[in-house]
């Protein structure tokens, strides 16, 4: 008789138990891979952001601005191709302050060409008149470019809020007080995971006039370089210029800048790993319990197998494979389920994380963990079964 077929028959012996165990391994692996997905997403958001761009911020922290005058001094550093800038606005939807989304005041004439390859304009108001746009700006953004209070919003945010093109939305400023009417002139879709899909961009000039009384304070400068290999030295040069001025700066690659936000989560990745371990251990117990029960029930049957000439090693392998088969099937369903359910739903923790992803490597780890758990859980019952003496096995009464 085929060895594997025997394993299959054994699995079908107590269908309910096999199904229950498989299901518990499935949900556990779903959770394991979902947690792994959070780690994947965090790891990914460290890697997003370009290595060829530098970000300059105030050395104390992001909440301190820098003078607008820095722009020209940074642009004069050899190797810097272009400089643009943005300010975090921190406005709220007055109807629902908990409905968080990011808003930035951007220097549109330089910002949009810099990030042109990251966005696709999916809808835009038609321009009232033909205007000459700076090179590198999508011509459909003409209506946005000429209107002082216009804004561009991400497609996801646009859908979530149920906005319409041409609608004027009013934000309540927290950092820059007052109410801020803005008219939606374009909707974009992000082509790059590092570029948020739920962001609102508006003219920095509007922010400067209305919110800063024309003082010209800049949140961060973004530097485009001629070649990426000079990044470190250019960063040092920029910081050296301002070291003794009113606002010292800190310049790092866009990637390192983004990683800074992830690092703010602190111990979170560690906590997630601990939970993941607990989950794996819990399924180990469930699976081990099942196998112990299965073998105990079949004691006399194993005695028969041995009488028929099955060797100890074969019995050992048979039990082990049976255990591994249950966890492998459950694990594979759970791990794949996590990948497709989480990536398919576009879950992003309410904008706190970039869109979640579960890497194939995490799925692979999950399946490997399941297989390992199966093998470990089958080890003791398998050992017991292989050591069983035929006389004892056959004598035992249920």
């Amino acid at each position: 008789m085929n060895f594997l077929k025997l394993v299959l028959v054994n699995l079908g012996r107590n269908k309910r138990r096999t199904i229950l165990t498989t299901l518990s391994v499935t949900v556990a692996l779903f959770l394991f891979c979902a947690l792994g997905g959070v780690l994947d997403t965090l790891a990914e958001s460290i890697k997003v952001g370009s290595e060829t761009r530098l970000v300059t911020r105030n050395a104390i922290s992001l909440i301190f601005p820098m003078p607008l005058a820095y722009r020209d001094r940074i642009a004069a550093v050899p190797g810097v191709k272009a400089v643009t800038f943005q300010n975090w606005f921190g406005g709220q939807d007055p109807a629902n302050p908990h409905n968080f989304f990011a808003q930035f005041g951007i220097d549109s004439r330089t910002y949009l060409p810099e990030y042109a390859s990251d966005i696709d304009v999916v809808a835009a108001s038609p321009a009232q008149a033909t205007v000459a746009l700076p090179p590198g700006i999508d011509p459909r953004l003409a209506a946005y470019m000429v209107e002082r209070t216009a804004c561009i919003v991400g497609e996801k945010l646009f859908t979530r809020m149920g906005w319409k093109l041409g609608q004027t939305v009013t934000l309540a400023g927290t950092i820059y007080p007052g109410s801020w009417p803005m008219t939606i002139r374009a909707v974009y879709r992000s082509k790059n995971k590092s570029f948020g899909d739920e962001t609102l961009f508006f003219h920095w000039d509007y922010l400067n006039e209305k919110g800063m009384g024309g003082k010209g304070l800049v949140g961060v400068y973004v530097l485009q370089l001629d070649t990426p290999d000079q990044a470190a030295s250019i960063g040092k040069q920029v910081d050296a210029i301002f070291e003794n001025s009113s606002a010292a700066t800190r310049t790092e690659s866009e990637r390192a800048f983004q990683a800074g936000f992830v690092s703010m989560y602190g111990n979170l990745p560690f906590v997630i790993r601990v939970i993941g371990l607990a989950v794996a251990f819990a399924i180990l117990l469930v699976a081990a319990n099942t196998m112990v029960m299965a073998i105990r029930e079949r004691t006399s049957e194993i005695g028969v197998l041995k009488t028929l000439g099955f060797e100890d090693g074969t019995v050992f392998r048979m039990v082990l494979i049976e255990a591994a088969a249950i966890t492998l099937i459950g694990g594979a369903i759970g791990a794949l389920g996590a990948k497709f359910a989480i990536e398919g739903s576009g879950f992003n923790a309410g904008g706190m994380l970039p869109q979640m992803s579960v890497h194939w490597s995490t799925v692979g780890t999950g399946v490997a963990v399941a297989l390992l758990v199966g093998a470990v859980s089958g080890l003791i019952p398998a050992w017991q079964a292989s050591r069983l003496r035929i006389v004892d096995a056959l004598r035992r009464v249920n």
Partner: protein
Amino acid sequence: MPIPISYNFRNVLQRPVSTLTTAIGVGLTVAIFIGALALANGFQAALAESGSPANALALRKGADSEISSGVAREQADILRSLPDVATGPDGRPLVSPDLVVVTTKPRLGQPGSSNITVRGVEPTAAADVQAVAQPVTFPLRAQVRITSGRAFRAGSDEVIVGERISRRFANCAIGDHIRFQQREFTVVGHFTANGASFESEIWGDVAVLMPALQRDNVFQSVTFRMRDPARFEALKHQIESDPRLGLQLRRESEFYASQSEQLSTVIRFMGVFITIIMAVGAIFGAMNTMYAAVGSRTREIATLLVLGFSPAAVMMSFVIESVILALLGGLIGCLLALPINGIVTSTTNFSSFSEVAFAFRVTAQSLLAGLIFAAGMGLVGGFLPALRAARQPLAQSLREN
């Protein structure tokens, strides 16, 4: 007549290995559940502890946190001269216009950096000329205690660092220097604040920090002790309708509690999400065990039925057995979760855009919630196997073997 519960206890103990593996499975789920609650509780407690209900805090209208607020010196002076502000033993009003900013510092022990709140407070001991060279005290925030070193002196470029972050960030040991723009400050002491989020901050003299940080004459908040806390509502109305001010007034305790809302909601939500999924797995495990228990006692159950115990009593008995099993797991979970009480961890509170260090807080309520949760798992897991036990065909079961 019900079947005695001692029967179930003996049965649970009859098969120690399978009881234990099932119970530990339930226990791990309960432990994660309690851990998540402890995390949220600890974080909330750290912020709740920061505010006193006797203090009021003024922010600019529309600001939702201290860092997004701004209060001009003239406005702070108007508040200072209000008759509703309590006075200290020296006769001076108990007011602190605070400068609140964040600074980015590298972490110790793990890579990366995070933001720390820097708070410039008004030193109170400076009234007395003799006292200028003396370390300051903080009558407005009575929970602040210096644990090592000393407090900063008024008018000096000295700062003190909350004990909880002093070990987590670079340059925070006593004698270290912290640079803000062109000025270097010396750490002269560490302080605790009864677990409050102040322990995650750097404090110095507002009169020195303000020019160093180029925040000319703008504070972020004004905190004062109310002469009569019961008059808060009237005072709030008076201040918020004063056109010279443009400020909002909140109870200090309520303000800090609101700063923890967002993150603790996220933690609770994640905790519940994770434990529900784990619970499904644990329930399947419990079902397996209970089915096996029912299966191996077929004759015994039939005997009980023949003796005259009603099927309902048999079913009840097995549900109880399952609950006992799960409660045993719940106890294991509580024991596993207890040691995390007091462990300090930290994360960024995005409401204040800065790091808050806080201790896991395992409360009696969360332990109880864990046990109830465990009992619920036992109830659900034991239901179907118990039903099967109660519906056994008598004659066939007795004939077996």
